[in-house]
């Protein structure tokens, strides 16, 4: 089952790579990505649609590993409808 994560983060150098790297390394495929820096600069939103690489991969474990990253300010996760690609 695909899930969608909305991550608010400090848009430091390498932050996007760091976030997407954790998603991949913790056993999730990236299905779609949308990112934009906020107008005031410094922070950004990332919406990433993910699918687990096996039944043993749990979304709550992934979000816990993302949440502990230095740049991450908040994470919301939800399961999108089929027509809601990022």
């Amino acid at each position: 089952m695909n899930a969608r994560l909305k991550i608010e983060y400090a848009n430091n150098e390498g932050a996007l790579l760091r976030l997407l790297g954790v998603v991949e390394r913790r056993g999730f495929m990236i299905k779609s990505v949308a990112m934009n820096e906020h107008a005031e600069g410094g922070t950004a939103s990332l919406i990433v649609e993910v699918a687990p690489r096996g039944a043993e991969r749990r979304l709550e474990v992934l979000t816990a590993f993302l949440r502990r990253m230095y740049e991450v300010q908040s994470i919301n996760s939800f399961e999108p409808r089929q027509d809601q690609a990022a």
Partner: protein
Amino acid sequence: MSAVGASMREEAPQPVSGARLLTLALEAEGVTDIFGYPGGAIMPVYDALTGSKLNHILVRHEQAAALAADAYGRVTGRPGVCLATSGPGATNLVTGIANAYMDSVPMVAITGQVASPLMGTDAFQEVDIFGITLPIVKHSYVIRSTAEIPQIVAEAFAIAQSGRPGPVLIDLPKDMGVMTAVPGPVRPLSFPAPQCASNEIDAANALLREAKRPILYLGGGVSIARGEQAVRDFAARSGMPVVATLKGLGAVPTTDANFLGMLGMHGTKAANIAIDSCDLLVCVGARFDDRATGKLDTFASRAKVIHLDTDAAEIGKLRRAEAALCGDMNVVLAELEADPANYADWLAECLESKREHAWDYNAPGAGIYAPKLLKDLSERAGPKAIFTCDVGQHQMWVAQHCQFSRPQAHLTSAGLGTMGYGVPAGIGALFAEPDATVITVSGDGSIMMNIHELATIRRYRLPLKIVLLDNSQLGMVRQWQELFFEENFSEIDLSDNPDFAEVARSFGIEAFTIDHRSEVDGAIDRLLNTKGPILCHCRIDPRENVWPLVPPNSANINMMEKRK
């Protein structure tokens, strides 16, 4: 000029080079020792080092700088610092950085980088070390402005030490180290400590009341949190049996009456039997690593779990916890209530099992029996000795047969399993605790991975005591090929090893060789009584295996034992 004008001019901060800002920032963090190796892109920093208070230890390979910094961080609890140039200097740090990441060791790694305008042009000795290390650092920086160096150094140290520690990388382009800036104020960084929910404490206490067969399962987090006393207090007032992971050894003294030993693949039979039949697992600072659990769904399969860790991401990662205690163990353990009377029968059963399955040191023949040698060495070195080791059979024998009165007395590459860790770790430990008796136990495969560091030992006259267990083979690989690959021995023969005693002597280090059991007592005397560095080369039986052993993908209860 007026006196006031002169005074104002004196007080105005003067611009200094980025490299000088870096050394000043390190001094401000309380850094005294740095392990490193110079090169082109990092030369501005080496230029600034000569005018600083920092003590630089010149190793002979950057990997050793990172591994020594790792050991320094483990012993002191403060970040170990390593320094290397760009390109190959930086990539040579990678194994040591990964080692620190896997074992949650505080470290700050500083790498030189080609000048900013050259970055991204495939310049000489350019490598994207920031990108290469992304999966193995807690955080990382590229310096983009000389003025931000003090702030970034302060952040790096705060991040490396906060919560669950880890390595932080600072990549310094050469021009950033050369350009000048006026030092500005540093904004302090604070990380709120996780607060354990009271309902989870209540749930844990209810589980402790209901339990009849609980076990305290300790991991490396105890050492990281400096939580030994809190753990020992809880162990004493709860009266429950205790087991530990490889990194958890020493969290309670390994001589403690209620300590059943290490659990897992090469753990004690008593520990694995107890885990198999427990009804409550009180996991403190451990992470259900596969080497500890064996086949996960068979691990403590009848037990409920109380999981205490400062890292929320570890709780429930591999095993669901009925009580999730995310917080500082020094606080949370004091809130747990357990009545030892409820567990007395269970404890007696575990201690009987411990007696029944105690190590047998009666080995046939006249050759050196490594487990007995290590047991005797450890007992005679005393509880304050620090053991470092490499990876392989000798690593498991150290874990099984040496005594540890504190976790910092056992420096081992647990998560990454880095052959070559032992000697650099001994160097790091001796800079961290110069008065300690530091003993490195190595194998003939492992020691060759960083044997050049004998030169570092000689240069700084470090009184490291090296015990080299030489079976002329890659012993652990051979053991697995014997047991699980139908004796199809492949590329494990090291019978063309050099004469290790001669090698050590060529580095200016006292050395001797033994190959008979009757020589062991005298060798231990000589090791412990020699004031300078010394290497004892011990030839052991190449057919000796590490026992017991849990086969791969098997339950811990299915331990293979030595045939008698």
